[in-house]
């Protein structure tokens, strides 16, 4: 094809196109005209209706609250609505959970956290047709102020947490409107796994949930999980404070990696670089050497492990304990296990509703434990595994599947989901672990397990500078790098021990969930930095 020919062809094409375009434009213009007509009609209609709407000051979108005025209006909490409030006129602020219009009435479910109540707008002498229509069109998840009459109901409302009352709305104002298209539906997010597939209903996958964490956190399940997590923290603090522990804060930007050099995040620090703390261990031990006797700290811990498993996070909340003891490191084990048992007991006794709520979506067996906690020794565990047909060396560490199997065996015999495994082989523990005085193959160290997964690793620490140096040389660790650590034991150090627990893991395993991201509010893993 020559150049001219090509040009001609394109010209033709252009012409054809412009013809088409013209037609299109015409059509669009017609459409626009129609639309305008329609809109005018609608406006006229609206005007006419507005004219005869007797209830028009009883609903609407209220002006943005900019703290224009301070009302003395008392807002009632949804959870406080009981038959005792019957026939009272109350004000209430809540989210629209669902709305369903049916002819001359509109049913709304109003939600506050995990509590919800049914509300009703019906055409009558208080509400007009337009008001019902307005109520029906309020988008889900919008926040509304409602004045309503509390009414007892004959039949229990099964779908709501407040089953004995409903609200007859007299006024309704939108405080904050949600966008009509939600990235995920709350009822889909709380649907139990498997159920959705059967009924052809949608479930929300984890990434969508985590990407839209703000909405996901509004679900009853998430509300329950994080209320329980707060309970764990509270119980941890209360129990330890009662035992005479002191809460300390430790720095998270540190100059040297505390445990070896691997798995540590490097951050730039002016002209040099620094590390993010992998554990507050060094500082806990320094506090012991500084005569604080018993300390604990609650704070973030960073691990640069590129492992995408259900139980690893790159940042998590560590609950760390360290204490000086008198004669035997079992005093430390007793303190830690008792703290855990107090937490479990507190959860069992005070967080039953939360546990039930989570169970609705993620069914699991109730968490079982013994008081005092069961303590087994490593050799016993090996014998139990051996009996079950697992071959492994005396000084090998437990692999994850073996941990799980051991958990099952222990559960079968002792019926407990929480136990301590004592006397680990020295070879599999860090250099600062105190060796067993009776058998150099073993050490004064222990792990604690919940539902067959390790949640705490701890030990009696070497508190003698010379022995620590020997152990470090044995492990071929550069003495220069840990000089500060060793030096802290040169001026007299009490015998001590401790351990650290991951808050997210404890919550996950207590509730029998299968992913630690569910119990981390804004999880951080190798693939997720937002939100």
């Amino acid at each position: 094809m020559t150049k001219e020919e090509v040009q001609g062809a394109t010209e033709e094409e252009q012409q054809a196109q412009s013809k088409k375009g013209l037609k299109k434009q015409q059509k669009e213009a017609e459409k626009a005209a129609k639309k305008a007509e329609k809109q005018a009609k609608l406006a006229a209609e609206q005007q006419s209706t507005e004219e005869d709407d007797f209830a028009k000051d009883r609903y609407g979108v209220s002006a943005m609250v900019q703290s224009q005025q301070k009302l003395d209006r008392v807002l009632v909490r949804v959870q406080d609505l009981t038959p005792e409030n019957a026939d009272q006129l109350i004000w209430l602020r809540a989210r629209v959970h669902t709305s369903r219009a049916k002819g001359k009435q509109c049913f709304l479910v109003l939600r506050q956290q995990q509590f919800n109540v049914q509300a009703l707008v019906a055409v009558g002498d208080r509400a007009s047709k337009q008001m019902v229509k307005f109520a029906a069109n309020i988008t889900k998840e919008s926040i509304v102020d409602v004045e309503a009459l509390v009414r007892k109901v004959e039949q229990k409302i099964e779908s709501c947490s407040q089953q004995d009352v409903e609200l007859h709305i007299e006024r309704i104002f939108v405080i904050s409107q949600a966008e009509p298209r939600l990235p995920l539906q709350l009822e889909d997010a709380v649907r139990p796994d498997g159920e959705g597939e059967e009924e052809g209903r949608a479930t929300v996958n984890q990434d969508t949930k985590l990407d839209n964490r703000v909405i996901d956190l509004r679900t009853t399940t998430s509300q329950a999980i994080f209320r329980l997590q707060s309970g764990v923290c509270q119980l941890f603090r209360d129990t330890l404070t009662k035992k005479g522990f002191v809460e300390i804060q430790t720095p998270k930007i540190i100059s040297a990696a505390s445990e070896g050099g691997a798995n540590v995040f490097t951050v730039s620090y002016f002209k040099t670089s620094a590390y993010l703390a992998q554990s507050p261990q060094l500082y806990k031990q320094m506090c012991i050497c500084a005569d604080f006797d018993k300390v604990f700290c609650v704070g973030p811990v960073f691990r640069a492990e590129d492992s995408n498993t259900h139980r690893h996070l790159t940042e998590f909340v560590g609950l760390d304990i360290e204490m000086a003891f008198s004669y035997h490191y079992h005093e430390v084990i007793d303190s830690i296990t008792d703290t855990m048992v107090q937490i479990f007991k507190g959860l069992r006794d005070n967080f039953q509703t939360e546990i039930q709520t989570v169970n609705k979506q993620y069914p699991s067996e109730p968490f079982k434990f013994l008081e005092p906690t069961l303590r087994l020794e490593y050799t016993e565990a090996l014998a139990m595994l051996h009996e079950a047909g697992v071959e492994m060396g005396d000084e090998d560490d437990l692999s994850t599947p073996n941990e799980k199997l051991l958990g099952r065996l222990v559960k079968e015999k002792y019926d407990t989901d929480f136990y301590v495994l004592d006397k680990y082989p020295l070879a599999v523990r860090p250099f600062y672990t105190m060796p067993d005085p009776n058998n150099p193959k073993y050490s004064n160290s222990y792990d604690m397990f919940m539902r067959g997964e390790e949640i705490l690793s701890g030990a009696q620490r070497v508190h003698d500078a010379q022995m620590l140096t020997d152990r470090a040389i044995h492990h071929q660790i550069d003495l220069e790098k840990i000089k500060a650590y060793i030096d802290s034991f040169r001026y007299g150090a009490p015998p001590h021990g401790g351990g650290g627990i991951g808050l997210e893991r404890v919550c996950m395993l207590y509730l029998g969930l299968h992913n630690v991201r569910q119990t981390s509010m804004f999880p951080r893993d190798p693939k997720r930095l937002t939100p």
Partner: protein
Amino acid sequence: MPMYQVKPISGSHIKTDLPTCMYKLPNIHAPQGNSYTSEHAIQNGEVDPAVKALEARQEEIMKKLYDLKAAVEGLAKTVTTPDADLDLTVSSSLSSQSPSSTTFNGISDLDTLLGKDLGALRDIVINANPAQPPLTLLVLHSVLCQRYRVLSTVHVHSSVTSVPPQLLSCLGPRHADSYARQMFQLGFTLIWKDVPKLQMKFSVQNMCPIEGEANVARFLFKLLSPYPSDPALATLVDSWVDTAFFQLAEGSAKERATVLRALNSALGSNPWLAGPEFSLADIACYCCVLQSGSASSTPTNVQRWIKSCENLGHFSPAKLFLQ
């Protein structure tokens, strides 16, 4: 009137055996060679070493006499109980042999009984309901402790909210070596748990759980002493154990009265329930009588038997419990 001729009760020539437990003492009144010097010493205000030695000797004899007296008292207590061993309160000098070993002798090697251990503690786990404390097992536990090195631990399961303090200390104080589980031959782990029926677990892999206090008691007793090899006797023991748990412990007042009558007649001809030997039948029935609270209003033979049981000293854990 014709008279009966009676054979002489004893032989015509009685030879009295002098007891060997008496001491021969040298004549202390005989004049001693150094009497003069000792007199001299006394005059000087010093104690004669001979007198000193004499005093020491007397004290020693008195001590031995006291020990003997205590032993005889212990024996007197058990004189009505044919094969009873010594009371636990008998002074230690005499009961160097452990009391249990005199009653329960026989097999003692746990390896043959429970199979070879793999370096782990053989742990017997018992789940019991705090509403029904298993007295029999507590008694057997204390006897086991006398025989073996037993690591005893008590736990409370999360299905139970709280238990009375005496249930937590029912296995006695903590063993001084309890930090090292490897040093024990046997573990006895009692878990207070909300279970409908008492349950024992030993080896999860090779053994199904044992249910019911009676069956667990049978298992534990076999660790102490072999069951009677005579099938009839073994069945008799079993039947008494069943009677104890089904009729004494759980039965109505009427049933209990019947059992007490049956006990009474059985104990009329035999010192113990299953013949001449103390057995599990006695432990079970004693505990159930105690638990049912009818110990004070029992027929005479049963009263005597209860006394005999108590003199054995094995039942203190159960009695402690009911106080």
